[in-house]
């Protein structure tokens, strides 16, 4: 069941497009904003609201890397693995993150605090390496100072 808040936000998008299917990516992002990820149940609810089949909607959902079809931790870390960040030290940063968190890329810490994911070029190439944690963009990331960077994300 979509919440009244989720419904309201999704319906606010309807006037922007000539048909409901066009809203499906926005709709999934709205649900993900509220719940952290898009479950099978949410998928079914959204598909029904928009007049799409579940398969069709899942086909769209699984194309887009920013739509999570699996649960994630309280905070999602996305570290840029594209060329300029690679030149400026991505591999060292990745090693430090994996060691510090004790997980591989794509995994969530056992306490549910962090999920670690790669992301493509964040458009911050002059201040590489870069990564995001939730909605925060972190630039010139120093792999030796990850503790203080991650500290505020409880």
């Amino acid at each position, binding site marked *: 069941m979509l919440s009244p808040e989720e419904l309201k936000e999704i319906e606010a998008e309807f006037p*922007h*497009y*000539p*048909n409901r*299917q*066009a*809203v*499906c*990516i*926005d709709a*999934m*992002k709205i649900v993900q904003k509220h719940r952290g990820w898009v479950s099978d149940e949410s998928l079914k609810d959204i598909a029904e609201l928009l007049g799409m089949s579940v398969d069709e909607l899942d*086909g*769209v959902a699984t*194309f*887009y*890397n*920013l*739509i999570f079809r699996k649960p994630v931790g309280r905070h999602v870390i996305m570290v840029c*693995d*594209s*060329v*300029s960040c*690679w*030149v*400026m030290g991505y591999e060292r940063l990745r090693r430090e993150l994996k060691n510090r968190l004790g997980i591989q890329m794509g995994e969530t810490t056992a306490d549910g605090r962090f999920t670690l994911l790669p*992301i*493509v*070029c*964040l*458009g*911050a*190439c*002059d*201040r*590489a390496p870069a990564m*995001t944690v939730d*909605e925060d*963009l972190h630039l010139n990331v120093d792999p030796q100072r990850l503790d203080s960077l991650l500290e505020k994300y409880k």
Partner: protein
Amino acid sequence: MEKVLTKNIQSDLSYVDVKAYEATGGYQGLRKALSMAPAEVVEVVKQSNLRGRGGAGFPTGLKWSFVPMGSDAPHPKYLVANADEMEPGTFKDRWLMEGDPHQLVEGMAVAAYAIQADVAYIFLRGEYLLSAERLRRAIAEAYENHYLGKNILGSGFSLEMYIHMSAGRYMCGEETGLLNALEGKRANPRTKPPYPQVSGLFGKPTIVQNVETLCNVPHIVKNGADWFKGLSYTQDGGTKIYGASGKVKRPGLWELPMGTTIREILEVHAGGMQDGVRFRGLLPGGASTDFLVEEHLDVKMDFTEVAKVGSRMGTGTMIILDDQTCPVGMVRNLEHFFAQESCGWCTPCWSGLNWAEKALTALEEGQGQPADLDHLSFICNLCAPGNTFCALAPGAVEPLQSALKYFREDFDRHITEKRCPWSSQ
């Protein structure tokens, strides 16, 4: 040099509101456009020699001229800003959107008027959160000041403008992939013809244009085509936002006359290489461009001159390769990106690029064989322009084919030494 695109951008990147934007001539371009016939606006953009800044460099005015006009034209017509900046090494549109969002709004309004569009979308990549916040504010202010909405400035022209935030994937930056994403589908490409100008978003006439390209439009209309051509050192009109990343002293972005040399951007503005490293090569315009090397440093960075030496200016943001960085590792990182971002629609791309990544990984891990280099060349030919459904794969093999040409000895060393020669660093 006269700053055109960046004159309002503050050094602390604070928000430039509608009043500040108007104070330096903002929305004068729109006012002038509304007093002209739409065809006259298209003509001045054509005469200006403005070429697309998204990577392909297609002449902008010419693109607009293909949109059906007149009372029999299908409606609604659409104007879409391609703000899905995801070409690795490219970070110029973000600066423009965060630093002077009204400039993009005005550029879109003028372009929409020229093609008589009814609705405009900013297709913005989902990761650009600050850009979204700034553009939302600017759009709200534009509506309040009658630069958007019904009967703009009493002209009779109406335009609605919306932002759509993407959910990721590089293919959303491809013109027809973007249209599919905006329609709520997977971002696979479409056959052309029909071209989007005739049958695009929801089957209606659509112009998709890069952010930087659109930002030039109000200035061209306000000041004229000759003025715009006069800003450039070469035939391609205007200024250009150039950038540099990698191990240079001052990575960053600079607005300079179109046709500034690679050497000037690298040595004067980016400050040259960091201490302890030397220049080996560069990708002049993002990940999907061919490497250039030392002998090319005096090439003028415009669409024509860079093409003459076998590469592309692309986005104009340069990625620098230094002598302490392995070229094979760099190309492997690039092909990992392209293989991952392949939408899967056509076989040469999804299959070829994945095999290229496998071969490059084997080379990096000391497992490479001479036949792998033949295989990599084969994949470059397989993914040539015209052999694939869209330009992702041809772009993907540009750094690969040029690395095989310019850094062949480094590939050979990975095979003969059975390791990456840089791996001890």
